[in-house]
């Protein structure tokens, strides 16, 4: 994101690298935003630390990316934090293998409720300690996780959802 002043980013990067040196995979500055990549076991600790010590009080975005075939860890969770007073942003990434569960951030920020349900619905990644881990956007009886790379854009035949209400198609009579 275009940023007014990049010295704050450099200072933040240095602090994180010194205090969390053994516990994160890497931290770097990428196009005006500090990016931290770490394992899911340290996620809640890092988020609470960023919220309390560096006043990142808003969770701006929460999403997942599917790297099918391109990386060993298939999924990657991406969190974007924002500090309303100092206007600073930071991005935190967590690589995940298929079937792994992620701790939920709902105790730190209430706003993580629906985005985590959306990621569960569309990508199939489960979150622990979430009060209601159910489908949010797709209909209740839906089978599949649409945003994965192996799911085709046109779907796999969704007529089972509306079977009982489809109008009968008129058959054309063939005259011999």
């Amino acid at each position: 994101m275009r940023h007014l002043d990049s010295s704050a980013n450099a200072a933040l990067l240095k602090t994180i690298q010194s205090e969390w040196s053994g516990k994160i995979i890497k931290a770097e500055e990428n196009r005006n935003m500090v990016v931290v990549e770490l394992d899911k076991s340290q996620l809640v600790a890092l988020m609470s630390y960023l919220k309390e010590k560096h006043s990142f009080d808003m969770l701006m975005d929460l999403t997942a990316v599917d790297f099918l075939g391109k990386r060993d860890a298939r999924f990657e969770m991406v969190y974007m934090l924002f500090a309303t007073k100092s206007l600073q942003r930071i991005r935190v990434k967590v690589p995940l293998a298929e079937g792994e569960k992620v701790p939920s951030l709902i105790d730190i920020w209430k706003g993580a409720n629906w985005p985590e349900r959306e990621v569960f619905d569309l990508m199939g990644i489960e979150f622990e300690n979430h009060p209601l881990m159910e489908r949010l956007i797709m209909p209740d009886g839906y089978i599949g996780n649409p945003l994965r790379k192996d799911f085709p854009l046109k779907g796999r035949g969704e007529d089972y959802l509306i079977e009982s209400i489809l109008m009968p198609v008129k058959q054309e009579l063939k005259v011999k």
Partner: protein
Amino acid sequence: MGVEKYLGDSIFATSLSSVANWARKGSLWPYPYGTACCSIEFMSVMCSDFDIARFGAERPSFSPRQADLLMVLGTITYKMAPVLWRVYHTMSEPKWVICVGACASSGGMFDSYAVLQGIDRIIPVDMYVPGCPPRPEMMLDALIKLQQKIQKESLNDPKYQERSDYLQRIFEESDIEVKK
């Protein structure tokens, strides 16, 4: 008006038909079933610049029981389809359907896993209005053409003879006896 049930199927009414059709076409009260962008264009049609009230569609009703004309405005997804089906079958005869926009007619630009490719897969449609979104004048044109179509209808039309599918199913599932 209910005149159909007195006619049976051996009487053809001509003047009575044209009077009934004139009354029906002149006061089509719409049900704006607005989902997406086309509903914003419908708001323009309802307001003073492109007034729809001068064609008789004075009172947009949001209760299907009190509406004659179902205007489907916007994308219908698989999650929304049962709701639309239920609303259509809750409306009482005579009723007509105008399908506004490319998304409702055929799925529009969203040929994907969640979008129903056309509402004529689930309910019968009388008039299609293409566009993304169509200009307000096109919606008024559709209303005028529908009025011309209604004028040519006959009171012996089979759709007025049989009971709606939804009600039939309700009666079949419960144990209510139907007196014919």
